[in-house]
């Protein structure tokens, strides 16, 4: 319509083009460019091991679920670099608000593997007392939030948390994970807007893994990139190759430091791919072509980092086998222990609803404890 030419709409940024995506590790495995964090080989190896053990655990837990020994698992196959690179970039005093795929970050923070496995079984030793589904852990002792299923709710919470730290004058940055699908939620909008207005020290980490269960990213939004959504809130948006652990580490680290220095929030879109199903309840063959998966397997973050290790001249197949074997061994031990533990007590169901148990919960607990289930020991 010719009259259109006359109207000048707000120009959309070109920064959605792929060459705006920050990358460090090249096809040859060499690290280069302005975003190379220049980590020493120890640190790189440390990241590599974390990624490998994360994947090893994923594989084992999926198997466990198929065997019917646990009810559910939601994993991070293919997303290890963006999860561990970003987690490693957070300083010890910083906080992590998880989505539900970040058990690797939780363990990286030092959360005991046994506690994680107890959560997968919802047994009496589960720190959340068997109240939530597997992979819905909570890690306050490790500056780690609490997983809940409703999409997006952790985002505004992370913003308020970060603002509170700032108000107290504490040198703390909060980071919060979510998927690209969650950018459609009301919580993303509110979190970004409040973060901008409050200039909160918070990083919004978007794992753009292309899929929201069966919905591809192009059906989530008509915007070319997720990073450009930052413009709506006056918050910088950056795109990084989320399968490049060094690039991810560097970008997140830079913005952690910026936020800590009073520079405010940032939205970081980490480009990656959900190689597995959405969860053990999902079969992606129903909605996506295998070629796509194969394509992404070629950019596998672990393979890429392994190549970089070769360039650095550290690590060997033998070491890798040994490391995997160790991981599997300790995992198996935790599983055996967790499986042998009893269920949480009937009483535990009525605790922690409130700080103190009110009369009606005492009555209800007594009712259950005097019923057949108590006798049958459920």
């Amino acid at each position, binding site marked *: 319509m010719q009259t259109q030419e006359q109207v000048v709409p707000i120009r959309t940024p070109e920064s959605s083009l792929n060459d705006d995506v920050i990358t460090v590790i090249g096809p040859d495995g060499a690290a280069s460019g302005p975003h190379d964090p220049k980590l020493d080989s120890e640190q790189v190896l440390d990241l590599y091991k974390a990624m490998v053990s994360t994947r090893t655990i994923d594989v084992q837990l999926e198997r466990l679920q198929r065997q019917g020994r646990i*009810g*559910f698992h939601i994993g991070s196959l293919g997303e290890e670099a963006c999860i561990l690179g970003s987690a490693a970039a957070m300083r010890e005093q910083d906080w992590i608000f998880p989505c539900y795929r970040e058990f690797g970050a939780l363990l990286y923070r030092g959360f005991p593997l046994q506690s994680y496995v107890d959560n997968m079984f*919802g*047994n009496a030793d*589960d720190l959340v007392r*068997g*109240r*939530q*589904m597997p992979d*819905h852990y909570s890690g306050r002792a490790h500056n780690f939030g609490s997983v*809940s*299923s*409703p*999409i997006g709710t952790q985002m505004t919470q992370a913003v308020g948390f970060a603002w509170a730290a700032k108000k107290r004058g504490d040198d703390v940055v909060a980071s919060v994970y979510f998927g690209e*699908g*969650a950018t*459609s*939620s*009301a919580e993303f909008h509110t979190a970004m807007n409040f973060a901008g207005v409050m200039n909160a020290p918070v990083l919004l980490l978007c794992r753009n893994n292309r899929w*929201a*269960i*069966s*919905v591809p990213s192009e*059906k*989530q*939004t008509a915007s070319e990139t997720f990073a450009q959504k930052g413009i709506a809130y006056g918050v910088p948006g950056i795109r990084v190759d989320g399968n490049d652990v060094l690039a991810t580490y560097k970008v997140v680290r830079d913005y952690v430091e910026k936020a800590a220095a009073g520079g405010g929030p940032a939205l970081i879109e980490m480009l990656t791919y959900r190689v597995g199903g959405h969860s053990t*309840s*999902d079969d992606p063959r*129903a*909605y996506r072509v295998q070629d796509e998966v194969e394509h992404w397997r070629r950019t596998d973050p672990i393979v890429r980092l392994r190549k970089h290790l070769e360039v650095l001249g550290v690590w060997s197949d033998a070491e890798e086998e040994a490391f995997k074997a160790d991981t599997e061994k300790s995992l198996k031990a935790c599983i055996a222990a967790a499986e042998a533990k009893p*269920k*949480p007590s*009937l009483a*535990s*169901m*009525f605790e922690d*609803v409130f700080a103190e148990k009110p009369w*009606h*919960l005492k009555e*209800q607990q007594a009712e*259950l404890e005097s*019923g*057949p*289930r108590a006798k049958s020991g*459920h």
Partner: protein
Amino acid sequence: MPEMNLVQAVNDALRIEMTNDEDVVILGEDVGKVGGVFRVTQGLYDEFGEDRVIDTPLAEGGIIGTAIGMALYGLRPVPEIQFGDFIFPAFDQIVSEAAKFRYRSGGEYPVPMVIRTPVGGGIRGGHYHSQSPESLFIHTAGLKVVCPSNPYDAKGLLLSAIRDDDPVLFFEPKRVYRAVKTDVPEGEYTIDIGKAKVVREGTDLTVIAWGAMLFEALASADEVAADGISSEVIDLRTLWPVDIDTIVESVKKTGRVVIVHEAPKACGFGAELLSLITEKAFVHLEAPPVRVTGWDTPFPYTLENEYLPLQHRITPALRETANYVP
């Protein structure tokens, strides 16, 4: 007559009405290509196309808000909320808008819309894949609430709901989805919204249930029958507006009543049922009406079967109520 489970029966009703009426559209998360996480809309995307079966962005408020807009235009949207637990981001659009639209516009703007969503426990879903939010919507004037217990009722009630001119919340008991099969007639038939069904006749006490808990109530009724207790079991089918006549008639006969539901007790629908019965049949009551419900805690994962009002909790309640002497 073909046998169907509840998933197939709902799918069948959707296909029939989408064939009958161009204005019926489905929208929600993952309802398209993959046919929903429970496969309830399977095949409809291929059959009716992406303009009739819409995969939306991940925003329940947007699903219901746009569905209301479609209804205002004259379509008959059937939005799906993936789990009843995720209906809350759309709560404002449902209670502030859909429920009040006809009233606040002096009748100018009806909102014919059926919100389908799976509810209840039984799949080890923990806090957020198990809840039963019916009482929140019953408390909101302007909404109808339906919850079938079996495939046959599900199909007939859904066809009625889609043709209804008011917003209807259609709660599907996910524990029943594939667990129960019944004969389901081919083609069209409807079951009136607002009519309960006496599924077991009895004389000593009345048991009121719906959805998945109906089967637990029936199991307990059989169990206590061995002790010579004769239970009448009512499947409400429509929760609101509730079929008060069927309830009161039964309670006048038995004088004793046990109400069963999964949702927490405090301000649950059981409280309203108990109140209505007390108001309307006070002089006929021979024992205090009893509620067997989910506890007033969040819905737990491991102890799901200790949380739910299953047979092990209903049976003692039936015995006590039947044997109550003031």
